[in-house]
């Protein structure tokens, strides 16, 4: 096989691996948050808000994890994938 083609294939494979890895971080975090909420529903005090103080209603750990996962996926990942593809195209 042509050495240049092999090199291109390697770059393409590496890009795919990195793009996939970066793209699953947010969803995996969100899945972990949902699983946690299902296993320990009492950690979400919004489900039983009566008589709870401000902090118990404001700080909901599984929901915080969910929000972090979603925000990372929406705000960080798209630009990162774009930059990664541009960098690989420039290098390739």
């Amino acid at each position, binding site marked *: 096989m042509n050495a240049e083609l092999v090199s291109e294939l390697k770059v393409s494979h590496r890009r795919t691996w990195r793009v996939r890895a970066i793209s699953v971080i*947010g969803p995996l975090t969100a899945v972990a948050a949902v699983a946690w909420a299902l296993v320990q529903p009492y950690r979400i005090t919004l489900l039983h808000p009566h008589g709870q103080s*401000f902090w118990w209603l404001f*700080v909901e750990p599984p929901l915080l994890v969910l929000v*972090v996962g979603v925000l*990372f996926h929406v705000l*960080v*990942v798209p630009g*990162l994938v774009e*930059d990664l593809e541009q960098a690989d195209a420039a290098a390739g």
Partner: protein
Amino acid sequence: MQPPAEHVHWLFATGFLILGLCLLGEAIVGPDVWRTRAWRAYLWPGIAFTLGVLMFPVMTFFTNSTIHMLAHGAWAQALMFAGAAELGLVRGKLTSPWWRLAMAFAFLVSGTAFLVHEQNAWFFQRSSFLHHLMGWTLVIGAAVPLARCVRPRSTAFGGAFAATFLLIAVMLYCDRDLAPIFGHLSPLAGVQHR
């Protein structure tokens, strides 16, 4: 309006989770791609610095004992120093890669702060166990930022660095003010209220 201590731990866990995800992202794509956009380059050092600043209110309002206040204060300064050093490196004001030792120093100070301000034994209650665990994780984990000084572009060390923050986040989320650990709860700890 002062939050219970466990809520403060959970809020800091969220900060460490954000930090861990950003570092994981940087480890995967590499520092050059991560720093293509200025806002992203400043993101995790800025968060580390902010977490240090936020430790000062913790120091001020959670004065259970002098050792608590000193530990939180030392921790705040070490985190701010490490965050500032990383910000300086990203900005280009600092050029020597050895400034990354600031993070290893912050790990050591943070770990020591955890161990020193936890006066009870491992199985006294859950928060005691977690403070010991986080303390030793950070003290031993200080080897990771140290290795990162030597090989700053290593994906493995970058991943290990991110994993340390993610581990700390998980431990902080597990924290409760008064709860058993593996079935152990000292009668001296009080009665579990939730």
